[in-house]
């Protein structure tokens, strides 16, 4: 009987561990990614960087995303999250925008980020 109890406990612990690892890695490993595309599709080119550096007036980027419409589209939700991370400069790809006011994520139905380089 105690063997069963121990086993059940271990299984429950594994389940908790599984959730913990993934929730943690979702936030902790945000920016850790490699762009494997040959044309570097997900990386800003030198030219784009240079242009962004050369602009001396504030750039305002507004990102609209409806959480309620994408409720059963995890692919869209994932993409929106990545766009948002890029805008907030946490993606590792688009960190050319120095300071963005990162608002809380859970504000439906739209969110906006402002940049002032």
């Amino acid at each position, binding site marked *: 009987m105690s*063997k*069963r109890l121990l*086993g059940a406990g*271990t*299984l429950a612990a*594994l*389940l908790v*561990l*599984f*959730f913990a*690892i*993934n*929730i943690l*890695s*979702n936030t902790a*490993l*945000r920016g*850790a*990614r*490699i*762009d*494997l*595309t*040959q*044309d570097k*599709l*997900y990386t800003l080119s030198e030219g784009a960087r240079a242009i962004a550096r050369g602009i001396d007036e504030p750039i305002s980027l507004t990102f609209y995303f409806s959480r309620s419409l994408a*409720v*059963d589209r*995890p*692919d869209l*939700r*994932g993409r929106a999250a990545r766009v948002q991370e890029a805008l907030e400069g946490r993606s590792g790809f688009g960190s050319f925008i120095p300071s963005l006011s990162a608002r809380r994520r859970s504000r439906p139905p739209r969110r906006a980020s402002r940049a002032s380089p």
Partner: protein
Amino acid sequence: MLRGLRAVFLRELTGYFITPVAYVFIVIFLVMAGVFTFQLGRWFQAEQADLRAFFDAHPWLYLFLIPALSMRLWAEERKSGTIELLLTLPVSRSAAVIGKFLAAWAFAVLALTLTFPVWITVNYLGNPDNGVILASYLGSALMAGGFLAVGSLMSAITNSQVIAFILSLVACFAFLLAGYSPVLEFFQGWAPQGIVDAIAGFSFLTHFQTISRGELAARDLVFFGSVIGVFLGATGVVIEMKKGQ
């Protein structure tokens, strides 16, 4: 701790090729991959130099073929009684669990690499992004590993291979579509929103699609790694619990 890992791995891997399992699996996998790509995926008609149609079929191919591969991992041993022999051999239990899984995984990856003519074809006909193709192969291999680990647990739970197959199929289907409404609606009624969001993040499909776009993110690797680790761990626990019953 992992004494005998190599022996279990080699024994299992050769086991596939001694029986017709390997040949039937590989042939069916390749034929079905071709059917999905060229007939259903309309790869030639699309006239695009990528392997999207090919890789988009993989989750659904694996859904049926991987449980067929994993169902025998433990259920067969238990049915034929050889599990007693295996567990009394000087092989640690983790080595047996990991060795069997690695052999099945190596076999699945072998079947996957045998699809290389598609890669040659697309490079002959056009000028595809080979970085994306490499990433897709990697993602596909990882997804196969995830499915196999789930199947390994289901095979350890039951003595019957048929039940193991059906349980793995359902579990893999749930993992594939976590985040889509059939699975989410099941949890939405009673689970807190945080849990529902976490489950939505467990979809094999979205993680695979992210990787196969050519974007290799650490969290996708961690996800598949944790699926494999946790399900193999659970397999070991279940085998220990069922010992002597």
